[in-house]
């Protein structure tokens, strides 16, 4: 369970407040207008943006000042999720050991993860030789071996076409259900919200609202969300 305890994020003139908890095994969509602070919220969760007030707790433990690598979560960014000079296998292996000293069992895990995302035949390829969808799947294979309790997606599939994006989201959904991880994803698309989110965090006006059940919220949006959805 991840808890923002009266947290505040300040970047120049921009401020964002958050005060809520996220539950294990749930899937959250973060929506809101451009520039409202969706990515900032994920950055604060993953440790790239410091909190200016309040605390961040993981199962009651204070992780406000923990470095990104030491947090119980993994994150996919909009781009640069793979090292272009390393093979797909190496990129996935980094998720197990950052120094890439993998033993036999580790290598088997990498192979299994690649098979799970249908990339077994591209294990030795460099990311530059893969299609956009294959690159996304390679990154997801790494998320799989990292096996962190939380997966954060900052629109990693934004550059893919609609069909491919749906395919990736289905894969993500299947993966987090297998591992029991919580999913937090930034999205612009209401259909994505309906497709996989259990709950919605609406970010607007300097505040990240506590999560609300997705279906009910989308069927009957409050005025400011209605204005955003159009």
């Amino acid at each position: 369970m991840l808890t923002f305890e009266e947290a505040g994020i300040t970047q120049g003139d921009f401020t964002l407040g958050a005060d809520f908890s996220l539950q294990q095994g749930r899937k959250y969509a973060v929506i809101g207008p451009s520039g409202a602070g969706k990515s900032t919220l994920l950055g604060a969760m993953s440790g790239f943006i410091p909190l200016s007030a309040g605390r961040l707790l993981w199962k009651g433990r204070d992780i406000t000042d923990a470095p990104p690598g030491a947090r119980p979560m993994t994150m996919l960014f909009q781009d640069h999720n793979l090292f272009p000079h390393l093979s797909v296998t190496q990129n996935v292996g980094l998720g197990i050991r950052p120094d890439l000293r993998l033993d036999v069992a580790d290598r088997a895990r990498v192979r299994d993860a690649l098979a799970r995302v249908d990339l077994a035949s591209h294990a030795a390829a460099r990311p530059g030789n893969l299609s956009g969808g294959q690159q996304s799947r390679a990154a997801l294979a790494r998320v799989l071996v990292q096996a962190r309790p939380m997966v954060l997606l900052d629109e990693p599939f934004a550059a893919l076409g609609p069909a491919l994006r749906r395919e990736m989201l289905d894969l993500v959904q299947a993966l987090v259900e297998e591992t029991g991880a919580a999913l937090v994803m930034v999205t612009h698309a209401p259909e994505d919200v309906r497709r996989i989110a259990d709950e919605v965090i609406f970010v607007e006006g300097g505040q990240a609202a506590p999560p609300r059940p997705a279906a009910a919220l989308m069927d009957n949006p409050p005025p400011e969300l209605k204005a955003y959805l159009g």
Partner: protein
Amino acid sequence: MARRVVAISPKTGIGAALLVLALILAALGAVLSRAEPGLGLGRSDWLAIRFTVLQAVCSSFLSVLLAVPVARALARRQFVGRAALVTLLGAPFILPVIVAVLGLLTVFGRSGWVNVALGGVGLPQVSVYGFHGVVLAHVFFNLPLATRLLLQGWQAIPSERFRLVAQLRLGPRAMFRAVEWPMLVQVVPGALALVFVICLTSFAVALTLGGGPRATTIELAIYQAFRFDFDLGRAALLSLVQLALAGGMALVALRFVPAVSIGGGLDRPLQRWDARGGVQRIGDGLAILLAAAFLMLPLGAVTLRGAMGLPQMPATVYQAAGISIGVALASIVVMLALALPMAGWIAGRARGGVEAVGLLGLSASPLMIGTGWFILINPHADPTGFALAVTVLVNAMMALPFALRVLVPPMRDILQVYGRLSATLGLSGWPLWRLVILPRLRAQIGFAAGLCGALSMGDLGVIALFADPDRVTLPLQMYRLMGAYRMEAAAGAALVLLALSLGIFWICDKGGRWRADV
């Protein structure tokens, strides 16, 4: 927008910077302990200071003034071999000074091509020794540098500006006033300052072409006080003068000196609509032709003469070549061990830092450091035993500012692009270097290593100060052959040295880019 992801620990980098500082300061301290200020500067010392400043002023003005028409011609003309010529302009940077000097002697020397030609038509001879020679050699080395700097300036002019000029139908003069003059006002002071500082600390040119009371630079005076009079007090005092002069000038120059892009990017001519007239075409052609001839003739001369001299080379040349290769390789290792952590530290900081280190490299004279370390080692051991080690260290430190200029910007990019990913994966320390930074920085590391290797291979500085008679580097061996008037053998050695310098640069640079991934 995000917090700076400090993936690289600054400790090693700060440690490396402090080590460099300590090495220089230790030498300075040793020099200070021996300097006898009461002694004062003698007449010959004042002459040396005067000559140093005078030749630097002349060399820098000539280099930059001559570079203006050449750079302008290169900026607005397209011709076969233009890219090759622009590349060639970078060559003097890695050219061993002594090789170039021999080339200049072959062309402009007492029985050189020019004098033979002049004699043939009954004209008086020109002398390549003394003031003229020193300035000539400095122009040979710095005209290409100045040309590249000015060419950068020309290419930084937005092409819209030239489009506007074409539309307004400005004539050559109006166009010069409106577009080129403002650029030159910005770029020329920096080029002047840079060339001036380089000429101020030049040693090998003065050693070979200067000499005597009327053509001795401070750097050469240090060498003479040390080597011939073994007057450590005077050498120390002169070292301080040199440090104050070069350091002070470097401090002043720093305000003007532009970022030197040693890499490519200059082979792209702008599309231009002006300067289509016949006179301008001929002028540009002449400028390019003369500059190319001035650069290529001495190099061609050395190659030609060297090829004939190869059979006359004594076996000591091969031995010296082996030692030089060892020194160059060791310098590369030391330089990278210092430069990489420092680059990581500087790239992790917000801005700045490179300049200070560059300043250190510009102002700390190799001979001062050599003298200092001689004084430090002398009471405890025979300094000649450490001559090669000190040479390696000094060479690595001299290449450091250039290496940092090459390494820091891409390092910054790597941290920007892959810092977050590395941080989420928990990559840090050696795995971060091994898996991310070194592979992604390979091309720049190769280039920096090539620069350092070539500079070190051709260096004739500290080693001339206190060499073990049996273990000398190739440039020193070549200098000794020239001193013994065995010019053909020296030319052979020059060819070997030229091949080694260019070769080590080429191998490192190519090796860095070999099968590199984008």
